[in-house]
């Protein structure tokens, strides 16, 4: 599916961005910000951190815009952006240990959440997501990546291969392993799969 922004396809918009057109990149930001934001939340279980990560993803994407990889079918850029997001999140995770120590020295009053609406809903999301990640993060990192892209990023095999920079066959095998490992983990944890969210509630 070819996405059209401001009368131009994503590819045309991106080519303008590569040529230095910041406005074209801004239009692409408008188009994909929500998807990246929600994807980052699913890997961090923290809306505020997801917002910071989303911004970083687009800054990194701007710096690497000449290296973009479009999907072959609809020439979409979202899979590549999700791949950038995964790298950004991985780097942030590595840095988090150091940052945690630094943040601990800050005055707690400066660490309050900076949104005031629907706080309950967002806090509930974070609690629920942390429980999902508690099991999810026990998978191998490569399995986490492919499962996150397919289940949360909504990508197919080919798009995931673009995002990860690996062959489609590798995506298929990793996803298959991820499914079986995840099933084992869920069974071991004693949860039952049912209509209600599996990990809801403590």
């Amino acid at each position: 599916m070819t996405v059209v922004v401001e009368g131009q396809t994503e590819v045309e918009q991106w080519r303008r961005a590569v040529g230095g057109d910041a406005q074209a990149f801004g239009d692409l930001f408008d188009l994909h910000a929500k998807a990246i934001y929600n994807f980052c939340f699913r890997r961090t279980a923290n809306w505020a951190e997801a917002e910071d990560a989303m911004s970083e993803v687009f800054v990194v994407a701007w710096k690497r815009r000449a290296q973009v990889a479009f999907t072959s079918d609809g020439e979409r850029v979202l899979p590549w952006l999700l791949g950038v997001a995964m790298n950004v999140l991985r780097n942030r995770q590595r840095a988090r240990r150091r940052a945690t120590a630094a943040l601990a020295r800050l005055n707690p009053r400066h660490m309050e959440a900076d949104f005031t609406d629907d706080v309950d809903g967002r806090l509930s999301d974070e609690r629920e997501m942390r429980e999902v990640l508690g099991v999810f993060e026990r998978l191998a990192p490569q399995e986490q990546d492919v499962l996150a892209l397919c289940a949360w990023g909504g990508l197919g095999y080919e798009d995931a291969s673009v995002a990860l920079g690996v062959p489609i066959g590798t995506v298929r095998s990793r996803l298959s392993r991820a499914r079986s490992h995840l099933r084992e983990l869920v069974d071991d944890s004693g949860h039952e799969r049912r209509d209600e969210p599996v990990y809801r509630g403590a």
Partner: protein
Amino acid sequence: MSLFIEEHEVSDVLDMVRSPAERDLPPGRLTKRKRMLMAEITAPQAVAGLDPLRARLRRIAGWFACLVAVVLVGLGASRAEIRPFDADHVAQALTVAGAGALIAVHAGAARGDGLQLDRKRPSASARPAR
């Protein structure tokens, strides 16, 4: 959730990684983030992009200075007439220390070339709203 998951009928995966519904950014945040992004990418150094030649030259200069410093230290150490408190040698040691400091600055600057865009601004959430 994922169209892919639905198409491939892997509902067990859907259940196992069920996550909260998607949300928009809090009101006003998308605009603010876009404004920050536009400011970031339209800054002169971002528009120009990294200057790979300049960064490479700086890195080469850093390594060359390192090599010179090593040679100087080696030559100095090999001289039999070295005296610990000889003023000339103190000056020589200071020169070597200065060269070392220069190397550190060069190396730091070369490494920082690729990171300065990220580091020059504090975290957005730490800044007051405009």
